[in-house]
């Protein structure tokens, strides 16, 4: 069954006791939250904690999210904060109960429709970047990547860095225009 309710409707329904609405929120936004936590450098166990913590925060804010239509962005931002707090805890060896306020424009790439935008932008790049970044996304090893692209093994690292830089330049203006 596909739930076509808007995010704000799902949030309201979950606040009113509708378990299926909560499940639909998880189904729609959970994968992106996982990606955000992983992008912060967490291993699988800590990323699971960051995602779980974010859902628990949402439970306590079901009635107080300022912009329910943007619950997706709220979830991604909160996941990132939780992930950074977990990282800081590991570094400080003490649990921190404060908040992380250093907003990072990079998070926009993973929030909202950032992934789709990113993929679309990759497809506009010239070769070898277009193929290389698609291969990077599938975690193909450097040796196999070199064979697929017909490039020397030693050039994969620098080429990847150049391609990411091109992507960065293309994405940044789109990001700031949103």
């Amino acid at each position, binding site marked *: 069954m596909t739930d076509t309710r808007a995010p704000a409707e799902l949030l309201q329904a979950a606040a009113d006791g509708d378990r299926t609405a909560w499940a639909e929120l998880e189904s729609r936004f*959970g994968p992106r939250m996982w990606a955000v936590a992983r*992008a912060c450098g967490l291993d699988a166990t800590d990323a699971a904690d960051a995602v*779980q*913590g974010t859902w628990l925060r949402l439970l*306590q804010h079901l009635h107080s999210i300022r912009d329910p239509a943007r619950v997706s962005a709220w979830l991604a931002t909160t996941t990132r904060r939780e992930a950074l707090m977990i990282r800081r805890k590991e570094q400080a060896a003490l649990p921190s*109960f404060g908040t992380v306020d250093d907003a990072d424009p990079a998070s926009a790439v993973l929030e909202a429709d950032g992934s789709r935008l990113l*993929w679309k932008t990759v497809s506009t790049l010239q070769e070898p970047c277009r193929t290389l970044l698609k291969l990077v996304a599938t975690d193909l090893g450097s040796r196999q990547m070199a064979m697929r692209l017909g490039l020397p093994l030693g050039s994969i690292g620098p080429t990847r860095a150049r391609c990411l830089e091109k992507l960065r330049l293309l994405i940044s203006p789109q990001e700031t225009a949103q």
Partner: protein
Amino acid sequence: MINDEYFLAALRLAAGNDPIPGHVSAAAREAYDLRVPGAVTADPAERPVARAERGENGSHSVRFVAAGLTFDLEVTVGDGLIDVTGQVFPNPGEGAHVDVRTPHLTLTRRLADTGEFAVTGLPPGWLSVVCHRPGHAPVQTRWVRIRP
């Protein structure tokens, strides 16, 4: 400056690589059972340094305040499990009790005359305490992550 890791994570997400594990999704869905309708959330109290204090025995102390109630919690991690001692003050009165909650286990305790309570053997991870008072909305601490 956009971090390369964000790009890579977004690319992997779009490619369907590194998908969210099933148990993480399941835990998120089950978290709905932890909802406390109508609860007031107690946030960590402002302190000069906004972090927990570590005691001599490796315990962590943190204070939460809301709706005229203060929760002082002392959390100790030993042998991979969590022990919590706490005090709610001023004493919420006759008939009040606390639920010490984790995603997988909730333990209920009557409050002593002093407002104190204790639980042992909780699994590590997220933890929250809810105080139920007759005639008042429940007060729930923010969830805190406790790991060895």
